[in-house]
Each structure stands twice: as C-alpha cells, then as structure tokens.
C-alpha cells in the first residue's frame, strides 16, 4: 500500500514539473501573442494622426508650420527620411537624429526655443508635440529598410563615438549598453533583448522604435528609450538630443542596415 502511494506521489511531482516547464517555454511566445493582439489596435495611430496635424499647423512665435523642414531628403520630404536618420546636416553643421532635427526645425521655422523644449520633461508641453511628430514621421517610413548614410566624415566619427559609448562601462554597477545588448539570447525578466552590435532582424531593436508603451500609455521616441536605458544602467541622465544619444543612434542605426522599420510599434 505504502509503495503504491509513493509511486503515485512521484508521478504527480513529475507531472507538475512538466507543467511548469511547459509554462516557462511558452512565456516568450505568450508575450509575442499578446503583442500581436495589441498590434491590431495600436494606439500609436492616434499619435500619428496628431503628429500629421502638428506638422501642417502654423504655430510658435513665427506662426509657421514645419512643412518646409528638411529631414535629410529635402525640404518637406517626410517619406523615407526616418530610415536614414541620424545623418549629417550642413545647415547646423552636425549629425542629428530625428528628435534633435525637429528641435532645430521648430526653432528656425517656428521660433520655438530648442533649449526650452529639450529641458521640458518627457510627455509634457512641447515634448508631447515632439512625440506625436516622431510617430507621424517614423510611420511614413514604415516597411522601409534602414540605410544610414556614412559618406560624411562627421557621420563616421559619430559611429565610432557611438561604438565607444556602447561598450563604455561605468556607474555603480559597472554596466555598459553591451552588458545587455552585446550578445544574442539575453533578456530582462521576460523581455528578450536585441543584440545591437549587428542587425538583430526586421522590426527588432533600433527598427522597433518609436513605440507605444502599453504599460504607461505613452509614445516613446529613441531619446526617451535611451534615457531609460541609462536610468537602468544607473548612469546620470543624458541630455535630450545630446551628442552621446545621437552617436548611439548612429551606431545602432548603421548596424541595423537592411532591417525593416515597423515603427511606431507597440511594446508592453
């Protein structure tokens, strides 16, 4: 009798561990499924619509729209601009990403102070307008492949600077971007982390941002994404549109050459 009971208990334990194993195996798939369900009604669309209206609206002290802003493909050209950013701009004499370019455009065209916008907390005032514009502009390049220009020496310099920043370990925990994004198959809790030293694939890593964050109901551009990466690394916060954030953008963007952009995507 005793023996039978033991056998039964062992079978029950085996069954329960198999169940646990099955659940663990499906958790990453579960997240993928959850994202697919949400993607159908991605609220980033609401930000795209707001951004499109903002692009065409006359605003600021100069009462002008952004329609003549040059995003790299000529004044007013939006489609295809996002997959070639960050890039060098002759008028400002520096390499700029989408967000820092929008700051200079709204300053020169509309008279809205770039320094003031950069100092505004994420999601408030003029920053929330930039987020919507970023959604609209990135959406105009959806499905296109990343192809950042590297013809200008400034662009190549920024790539090298970005590479250094990526592997630079510091902070109280000795983290670098590479600690989490330097190898394949890493994760934070249940989130798979992309390997950013190479092209991690279509719609992954650099090609997935800007994105709508379901947990906070906000749209995050690359600037906010990097700001939060640095927070998690226990680094000081980088300045909005600062050189290091743009250099990292160049590094990730050049590495992601050929990856299809799905931005603005949806994240948990």
């Amino acid at each position, binding site marked *: 009798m005793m023996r039978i009971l033991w056998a039964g208990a062992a079978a029950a334990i085996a069954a329960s561990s198999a169940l646990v194993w099955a659940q663990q195996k499906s958790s990453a798939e579960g997240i993928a499924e959850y994202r697919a369900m949400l993607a*159908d009604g991605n*609220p980033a669309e*609401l930000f795209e*619509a*707001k951004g499109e209206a903002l692009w065409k609206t006359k605003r600021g002290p100069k009462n002008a729209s952004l329609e003549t802003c040059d995003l790299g493909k000529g004044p007013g050209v939006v489609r295809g601009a996002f997959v070639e950013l960050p890039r060098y701009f002759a008028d400002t004499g520096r390499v700029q990403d989408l967000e820092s370019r929008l700051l200079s455009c709204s300053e020169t065209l509309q008279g809205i102070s770039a320094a003031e916008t950069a100092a505004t907390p994420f999601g408030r005032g003029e920053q929330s307008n930039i987020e919507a514009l970023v959604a609209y502009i990135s959406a105009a390049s959806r499905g296109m492949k990343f192809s950042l220009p590297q013809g200008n020496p400034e662009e190549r310099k920024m790539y090298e600077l970005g590479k250094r920043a990526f592997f630079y370990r510091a902070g109280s925990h000795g983290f670098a971007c590479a600690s989490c994004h330097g190898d394949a198959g890493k994760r934070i809790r249940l989130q798979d982390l992309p390997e950013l030293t190479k092209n991690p694939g279509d719609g992954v890593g650099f090609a997935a941002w800007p994105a709508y964050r*379901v947990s906070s109901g906000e749209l995050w551009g690359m600037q906010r994404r990097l700001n939060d990466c640095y927070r998690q690394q226990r680094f000081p916060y980088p300045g909005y549109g600062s050189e290091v954030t743009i250099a990292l953008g160049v590094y990730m963007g050049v590495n992601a050459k050929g990856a299809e952009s799905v931005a603005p995507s949806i994240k948990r």
Partner: protein
Amino acid sequence: MADPMRIRAQASGDKATVRVLMAHEMETGQRKDAAGKVIPAWYIQQVHAKLNGKDVLSAQWGPAVAKNPFLQFMIKGAKAGDKVSVSWVDNRGDTRTDEAVVT
C-alpha cells in the same frame, strides 16, 4: 474638444467587423500626482454604435478600461457602403462622435 477616434469597418460575408481606437486618458481617480494630490477620475461612461442611424451597440464603461481604449465588435447584416458611427460620453460630459464607411 476630444481627439478623433480611428474607426475601421470591414465587411466579410453577412457581417462586418468594426475596430475602434479611442483617444482618452481614462483616469481612474485612484492615482496621485507628484504632489500627493488625487488625480480626479476622468473616463468614458457610455459608448454607442449605430449602423445607418440605427442603434447596434450600447455599452456602459467604467474606470477599469485602459487608456486609449480599443473596441472591436461585429455587426450582422452590415454591407460595404453602410455607415457606422460610434460615440462616447465621459464622466465630465464631454462627448465625441466619429463615422466610418464599411469597406
């Protein structure tokens, strides 16, 4: 004035699938701001959908519905060219109505 909704309605067979994305804060009234003050509740309370002016759906919502809600439903007998209109009313009395044509 509230931001517009995005409505898509697609017919297949004898019914149409309607997908609605609404722009709304959906504040529960349970959260506090940085200063410790309660953020007042602000959420959609009523949702109505019409097909060619005839009621097809009415719903009562509460603060448990997420920010920027997504609603999907099917209408029996809707065909391409029909008009679907969706409207909501929130607890501040603010309202928004948008329309789409079934494709």
